[in-house]
């Protein structure tokens, strides 16, 4: 309860939550507000925003409604961002927990692998994965998740290292608990809060990574994604710059909202660190 009170007291955190809820509402209502396929031709190409009431945000190079693509794009961004974050956090917790709990050679091997992933630039690895497995919605989501797990793994490992010799864990050990019980039932619940807060950073980066991939036309071309639209707008940048500008603002607002919520959660859960 205290944490909720502290969260609500921060204007930035509330703003982030409102923005995020707005974007989620857009994603959910996309099918009702724009029942037609967002990638179908809707009207004359390159209508400027606010000049035709039928297309509030105008149309792109091939006459598709930009507003509809923004609504459906919210779905894709949240879906890929959310699913990739889940994958990254799951792998990160698994690797970090095993490395931190067992130490020794398990730790050495797992940390070497983590280091390898961190040494290779994540976007370059993303390019390799897309080159090998193709660029459908599923493969892109998994690929973004696979390049994002090292940081959560290190964080989980650090938490496990500091928790594994605490009294309550030793008590569990003397009670004859199995390793799995100790890891899942005793240590993990205590190690989880900072990892969950960090998930907001992972999600923000995941959304940016996907949009960059889509901008380079290496993501799924068959879905309405903000990055795709920016890439498309690049061809008409000289005059109709709004085609690229509008979806970029959508990405900016989404990433900003996710970061603000994450920061708000962090401040609410660790009141001592407020303002840092």
């Amino acid at each position, binding site marked *: 309860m205290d944490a909720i009170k502290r969260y609500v007291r921060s204007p930035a955190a509330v703003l982030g939550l409102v923005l995020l809820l707005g974007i989620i509402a857009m994603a959910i209502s996309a099918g009702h507000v724009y029942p037609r396929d967002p990638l179908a031709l809707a009207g004359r190409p390159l209508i400027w925003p606010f000049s035709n009431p039928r297309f509030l945000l105008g149309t792109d190079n091939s006459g598709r409604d930009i507003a509809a693509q923004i609504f459906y794009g919210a779905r894709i961004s949240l879906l890929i961002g959310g699913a990739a974050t889940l994958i990254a956090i799951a792998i990160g917790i698994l690797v970090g927990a095993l490395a931190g709990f067992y130490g020794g050679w398990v730790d050495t091997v797992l940390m070497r692998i983590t280091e390898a992933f961190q040494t290779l630039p994540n976007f370059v690895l993303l390019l390799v994965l897309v080159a*090998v497995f193709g660029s459908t919605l599923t493969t892109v989501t998994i690929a973004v998740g696979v390049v994002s797990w090292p940081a959560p793994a290190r964080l989980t490992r650090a938490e496990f290292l500091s928790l594994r010799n605490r009294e309550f864990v030793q008590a569990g050990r003397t009670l004859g608990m199995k390793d799995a019980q100790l890891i899942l039932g005793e240590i993990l619940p205590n190690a989880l809060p900072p990892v969950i807060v960090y998930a907001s950073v992972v999600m923000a980066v995941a959304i940016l990574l996907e949009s960059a991939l889509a901008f*380079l036309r290496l993501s799924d071309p068959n879905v309405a994604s903000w*990055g795709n639209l920016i890439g498309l707008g690049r061809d008409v940048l000289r005059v109709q710059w709004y085609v690229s*500008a509008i979806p970029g603002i959508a990405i900016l607002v989404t990433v900003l909202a996710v970061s603000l919520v994450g920061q708000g959660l962090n401040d609410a859960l660790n009141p001592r660190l407020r303002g840092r």
Partner: protein
Amino acid sequence: MRILSLAGRRLAASIPTLVLILIGVFLLLQFAPGDTVDAMMAQMGGGDAATARELRRFYGLDLSVPAQLGNYLWRLIRLDLGFSSIYGKPVATVILERLPPTILLMTASLSFAFFFGLVFGVIAARQFNKWPDTLISTLGLIFYATPSFWFGLMAIVVFSIYLQWLPAGGFEDIGAVQSGVFRILDIARHLILPTLTLGLIFLAIYLRIMRASMLEVLNLDFVRTARAKGLDETRVVTRHVLRNAMLPMVTLIGLQAGTMLGGSVVVESVFSLPGLGRLAYESVIQRDLNTLLGIVFVSALLVIVVNFIVDLLYARLDPRISMEG
């Protein structure tokens, strides 16, 4: 000397990492649809199966995967990255040609982000919770959320199309053959927008870290001592606080080197710079897997080298590091 041996030991420790990356990516690329010979055949406009078989034998592609991997690693030791069938040159040559713009861009962006991150971070921390702090912190949040490629495009719209102050892309003017100072100035003009674009997100990260670290150090005992000695505030900040507060920022350079290299893939594509990042993108599009693997190797190497330099820098800034040995 101690510093050097310490950093050298960390450098040696990264060799297994490098080998691990190469083996991993090599095995990964075995799953890729099509191999070098397929790409070459497509380049030649097709050919019969006998030619393909002949070529595969010539390039050692008919061997088992472990044998191919062994061959590749053995060639790597002799700094042979293989042959790019798309560019018709050894991969090492192609990469070396593309390396300078990327290194230039990364150095410029890093300097930009580091310097302004430092300055803004110090200002924000000194004016803690007053309006300059709020403004700087808000801008930091917004910069962090801005997709770099989008910022680049908007910068092109404003500075290249409307104001026509700066070129929209390219590394230098191809039309005018220049030399000496004029060529350097020309390249610098072409690099302003890419530098800002790539550096923006790092500026946001650095200023946030610098602000937090300043706030932390400003509360330490030795700062109170310095103030008690009667030093004025500027002296306290520049001589006592800054050096200590900079340590997390220096650490971050090493951690972010990979991210920056990844970011340059996108930025180089936006500004059509002939760099390593653009080469990575092209080799994915053209399925030039040999070159892609070479880029993986070189970029990992680059990250390791940056971390080596950071280790040296860190030891200079904080003598305690080399004492612990």
